[in-house]
């Protein structure tokens, strides 16, 4: 029976009478909604960035590092004692059922020369299956083959950054570059991959066959030595199993007794990344929660002003009751007023949130993701705040005694 359009009109008029007061009340909601949207944008941006990085290094990855040496009771860092070989890598691929692929890596930094240009970059000696482990396609040319590895051919794949620095816009395929003065034929270019999770340019690299790296570039202290082994498990569920199988296999191969420590370490890269992603997500929830506190504070502001308004307009309420307003007519009038405050504030806050997210993104360089859901949630939440905090004043108004209210000065 309540007439919505006239109720809206009455509510707007009542709010217009106290423009400053209404605007300040709305400001609470504007800040609240704006903060929720901006904070969620920052949080979502952070977790999306991490998720992107995870997919850029490849999924279901395990990395095997050599162990540490002990010199005079001082334990050196991990990787100080080279213990891993290409044969370990082959054995892992062959014998561990949970492993999809395994590739050895022997890397180092070297000066690369082409014509009168030179560039210092990371050289990675590995096997062809490294590309599928890293989910890294070739953008032009071809990858090197197991045959290239077997015969230690002087062929190489360039990352996009190296191409940009040595060749500019020219096609590098077929040209010869010198790595540590050794001539290599360029057979392919790796697709651009962007930054790694710790901020390194993954495209600043050259891939060569591991055997070539061992024999021509970096040398080995014993046959087949490599620095690390990268492993891709068959699935996320089998990561744990793969870790266990690799550990057992390598202990066996390295003849480590039951009471001795491993001379290598196995790290689940994907798990580490997922933990990071999870903490980013928790951070974003936390930020959102803190921001929604300001939304609740804004709601309390609405309640406060509505209570003042009910007291101020006691006589008006009395008149309305005398001429036939029922309980819910009065309640709706005040709830709608509160909702207008919160929804108009919510709309303005959404715009504020979008603008401040953009400014934040520009000023800090953070990646920011504004999801439509966060806008919907913030806006919907502001409406609920309006109803929730508007109800008590409205309820109070509807319980007034008309005779008393009419006499109110």
């Amino acid at each position: 029976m309540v007439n919505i359009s006239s109720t809206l009109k009455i509510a707007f008029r009542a709010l217009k009478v106290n423009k400053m007061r209404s605007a300040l009340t709305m400001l609470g909601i504007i800040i609240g909604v704006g903060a929720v949207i901006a904070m969620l944008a920052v949080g979502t941006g952070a977790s999306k960035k991490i998720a992107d990085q995870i997919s850029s290094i490849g999924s279901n990855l395990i990395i095997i590092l050599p162990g540490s040496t002990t010199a005079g009771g001082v334990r050196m860092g991990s990787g100080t004692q080279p213990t891993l070989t290409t044969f370990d890598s082959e054995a892992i691929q062959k014998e561990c059922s949970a492993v999809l692929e395994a590739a050895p890596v022997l890397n180092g930094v070297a000066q690369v020369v082409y014509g009168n240009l030179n560039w210092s970059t990371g050289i990675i000696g590995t096997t062809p299956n490294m590309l599928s482990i890293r989910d890294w396609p070739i953008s032009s040319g071809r990858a090197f083959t197991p045959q290239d590895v077997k015969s230690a051919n002087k062929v190489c794949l360039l990352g996009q950054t190296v191409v940009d620095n040595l060749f500019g816009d020219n096609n590098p395929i077929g040209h010869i570059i010198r790595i540590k003065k050794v001539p290599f034929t360029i057979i392919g270019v790796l697709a651009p991959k962007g930054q790694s999770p710790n901020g390194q340019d993954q495209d600043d690299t050259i891939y060569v066959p591991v055997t070539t790296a061992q024999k021509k570039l970096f040398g080995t202290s014993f046959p087949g030595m490599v620095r690390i082994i990268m492993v891709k498990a068959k699935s996320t569920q089998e990561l744990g199993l793969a870790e266990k199988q690799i550990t057992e296999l390598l202990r066996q191969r390295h003849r480590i007794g039951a009471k001795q420590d491993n001379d290598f370490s196995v790290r689940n890269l994907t798990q580490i990344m997922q933990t990071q992603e999870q903490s980013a997500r928790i951070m974003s929830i936390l930020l959102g929660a803190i921001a929604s506190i300001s939304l609740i504070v804004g709601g309390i502001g609405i309640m406060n002003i509505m209570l003042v308004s009910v007291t101020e307009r006691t006589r008006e309420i009395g008149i309305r009751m005398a001429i036939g307003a029922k309980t819910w007519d009065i309640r709706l009038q005040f709830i709608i007023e509160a909702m207008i405050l919160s929804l108009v504030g919510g709309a303005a806050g959404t715009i504020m949130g979008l603008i401040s997210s953009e400014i934040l993104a520009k000023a800090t360089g953070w990646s920011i993701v504004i999801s439509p859901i966060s806008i919907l949630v913030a806006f919907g939440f502001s409406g609920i705040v309006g109803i929730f905090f508007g109800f008590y004043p409205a309820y109070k108004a509807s319980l007034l005694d008309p005779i008393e209210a009419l006499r109110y000065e």
Partner: protein
Amino acid sequence: MALIEVKEICRTYDLGDVKVNALCGVSLEIQKGEFVSIMGPSGSGKSTFMNILGCLDKPTSGNYFLEGTDVSKLSRDELAGIRNKKIGFVFQGFNLLPRTTAIENVELPLLYNGLNAKQRRELAIEALKKVGLQERIDHYPNQLSGGQQQRVAIARALVNNASLILADEPTGNLDSKTSFEIMELFVRLNTEKNITIVVVTHENDIAAFSKRMIKFLDGSVVNDMKVIKNG
């Protein structure tokens, strides 16, 4: 059937330690088309009686029949419905909504019975015509004189075709010339439209406009008589 029939109504205010009988054992009938004035000193119970007649208050005991329905047993919202459809109020202080135009004030009761905007406007204009204010429908209360404000209030009381108008000291805030104009308006509404009017007043010359005078003292009716018009 009488428009108003009250039977042995009492209204007791419980003030904690003491109970005050504002109204005690009042019984009377008012027929349709009567013009009644209610007089009495302050504290005599006349305002309490008006509140009960206006369905703003309920008697502590006794029965009040309005057009045959016992309204003393109705709920808050049912009473609001009765006030909306059957009763029009005119107050001493006009009680118009500020910052609201004359026509919007008159439309107010229609807002609570579900008429659309066009119907509301038509009925409100008609009511304002009856009180002679059709020229000032878009004026705000603070742009109108006291007499004009009271006319708007009367138009608001008329707009729902109420069968009963209750006026609580309607001329209390007006000068004597305007008071008489307002009372003449009541007389005209009473004779031409056959609307039942009950006016509470202090003043004998205001009561003289009515056809029947009821005097209250200490919560009871002490005098109920016809007004003899001289001339």
